């Protein structure tokens, strides 16, 4: 029988959290993010007001989603662009694939877009015989390794420079003389320049869809997103319907807040706005401009009175970076497009609660994610709600239900509880005494297999309570 997503998660999490090298790499990466993030926040006079403003902007947009999407669409079409609404991954991929085939596209350059990862656009195009280049440096690296992005903002943060040098040597067919990051970037730049100038189609995502101006907004540091949207003769934007914001002026807060939460920068190097194909008077730019608006389960969330705000997410990655679970198990362990707290909340909605309910438990409910979210999504409470929803939907095993029934019974009957506690202490003492702590015979195995055994109290809580009361 093949493994379930939950079994795979537990297995990979156990391996990753015991991998000292992985822990060291992630610790270093996160330390430098933490320092930059704190410095970035200090540059904003009233960070809490900024978060609240962003929350209000996104709430207004999502609460009038139909109206703002139509306003955006109208403007884009008026400028000669095309807007395609895709209900699911298949529709989105088919549209882009047919467009590429119809226009004779053989090579595609892509800038980073989590929505294209979500709908598996790259593999769909490759299957149709189209060469796809990921051009974000981190994405380029993980594409060469034939794996998904490790993190939604820094896709290759799990790798060391030496590994990347070896990878380039193997995959790019050229001699790599150094593992200096600047040298490796220069190598990638040379290889990708050729791709930019030979590709017929550029595919980008969008960080925001600005309704009143009818433009997409893309934030990038490297400039690959700029080249993807400037050089090839066709530009396709693939993005989620929830990315819309009402006004251009909203970016005056959203851009700095996204940059601060994403990387700790005051603002991202390139904040690009594109509203259509090249105008006849313009020096360059694509002749075709297509926007693919992907639903893929998002519209269902609107009817969820508790979790509609999950659609406010601007994909900054701050909740991943602060999450103690992410920091230990790493991005790939989640086995989902979106890892970390936001992924754990979102994935059951997009891909099914039955298969992904275990992610609701990949959290200590410490609330760190909620405290850093720049649009104030109540992430850890949504994880709790997902746990409840999964249980109410009857996805729990009968053994689990039986156990909770027994627990409930014991909690309501003090004598039974006392006997149970006594039995447990006795049994554990025997198990520990035989040196079987952490073995399959140990009822506390989940905890004890990687740790020194939980010390056993000599007497029950009730007994201590009685004694203390008597002493006072």
């Amino acid at each position, binding site marked *: 029988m093949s493994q379930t997503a939950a079994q795979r998660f537990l297995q990979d999490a156990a391996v990753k959290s015991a991998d000292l090298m992985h822990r060291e790499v992630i610790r270093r990466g996160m330390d430098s993010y933490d320092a930059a993030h704190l410095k970035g926040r200090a540059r904003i006079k009233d960070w809490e007001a900024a978060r609240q*403003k962003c929350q209000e902007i996104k709430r207004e947009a999502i609460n009038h989603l139909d109206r703002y999407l139509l306003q955006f669409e109208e403007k884009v079409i008026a400028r000669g662009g095309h807007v395609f609404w895709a209900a699911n991954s298949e529709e989105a991929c088919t549209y882009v694939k047919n467009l590429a085939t119809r226009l004779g596209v053989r090579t595609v350059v892509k800038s980073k877009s989590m929505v294209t990862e979500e709908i598996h656009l790259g593999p769909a195009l490759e299957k149709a015989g189209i060469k796809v280049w990921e051009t974000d440096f981190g994405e380029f690296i993980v594409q060469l390794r034939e794996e998904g992005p490790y993190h939604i903002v820094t896709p290759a943060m799990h*790798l060391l420079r030496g590994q990347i040098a070896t990878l380039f040597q193997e995959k790019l067919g050229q001699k790599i003389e150094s593992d200096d990051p600047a040298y490796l970037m220069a190598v990638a*730049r040379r290889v990708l320049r050729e791709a930019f100038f030979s590709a017929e189609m550029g595919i980008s995502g969008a960080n925001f869809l600005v309704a*009143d101006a009818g433009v997409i907004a893309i934030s990038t540091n490297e400039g*690959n997103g700029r080249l993807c949207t400037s050089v090839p003769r066709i530009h396709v934007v693939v993005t989620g319907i929830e990315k819309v914001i009402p006004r*251009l002026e909203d970016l005056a807060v959203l851009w700095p807040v996204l940059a601060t939460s994403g990387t700790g920068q005051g*603002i991202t190097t*390139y904040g690009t706005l594109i509203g259509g194909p090249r105008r006849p008077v313009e020096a360059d730019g694509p002749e075709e401009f297509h926007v693919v608006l992907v639903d893929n389960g998002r519209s269902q969330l609107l009817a969820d009175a508790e979790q509609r705000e999950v659609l406010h997410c601007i994909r900054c990655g701050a909740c991943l970076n602060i999450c103690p679970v992410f920091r230990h198990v790493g991005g790939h362990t989640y086995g989902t497009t979106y890892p970390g707290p936001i992924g754990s909340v979102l994935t059951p909605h997009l891909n099914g609660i039955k298969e992904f309910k275990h992610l609701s438990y990949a959290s200590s409910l410490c609330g760190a994610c909620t405290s850093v979210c720049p649009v104030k999504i109540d992430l850890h409470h949504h994880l709790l709600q997902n746990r409840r929803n999964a249980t109410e939907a009857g996805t729990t095993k009968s053994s689990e239900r039986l156990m909770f029934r027994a627990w409930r019974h014991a909690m309501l009957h003090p004598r039974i509880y006392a006997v149970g506690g006594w039995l447990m202490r006795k049994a554990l003492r025997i198990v520990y005494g035989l040196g079987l702590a952490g073995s399959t015979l140990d009822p506390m195995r989940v905890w004890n297999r990687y740790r020194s055994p939980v010390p056993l109290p000599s007497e029950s809580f009730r007994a201590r309570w009685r004694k203390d009361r008597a002493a006072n």
Partner: protein
Amino acid sequence: MPQTEEGQTEKAQTENSSRDQILQRIRTGLRTVVAEPVAMGSDRVIFEPINNPLERFQQECVANLMECALAADSAASARQLAEVLQSLPEGEIFVQDDPSLRRLIELTELGRAVRWSSQGAPGEASQATVTLAEALIAQTGSILVTASCGGRGASVIAPCHIVYATIAQLVPDLATALSRVSQERTLDRNSFACVISGSSRTADIEKILVQGAHGPRRLVVILQTAQSR
């Protein structure tokens, strides 16, 4: 958007079978009432007000790893431009076809081959691009360019991008710059605009900052303090 316009918007659709279904799902979903916290009072100030825009702009340029050279007049601007161009390898440069830049290039008296934006996009061989900007933003040390500033590639293809601007173009913050773009309908006249804050960069390997990724390694602003070009 007023109700009367909605009918027209609906008509402006592209060939698309799922469009109405998605809109229907959205509208159905939005009927669910969601409890909302009270909106923030408008008196809270998010960003520190900018008292001295020029000083702030210069500080932010340093933080953004870009160069800002002040020049008193067009002759001084030409000298600054010549200095930057002389530091670059041999080869042609790409220049936005604008009368003020034609004059400036003439003043530099350099024998470099020039490709003008009226002749098309910059090529891989361009050593530098020289353009104007729509505005400079003090708060973030940014330049705002549009397709009118020599096109899309003009600010990203070459290893060095030089911007010729005047002090009158300096606005205090992003909010001012963006509301001006809205008011002046800049995006109706341009298919592209970009707020550029520094040279291209990446930190994708071990979070180590590398200056010069896919775009320019150098971004130079020649800021003329005399009001006109």
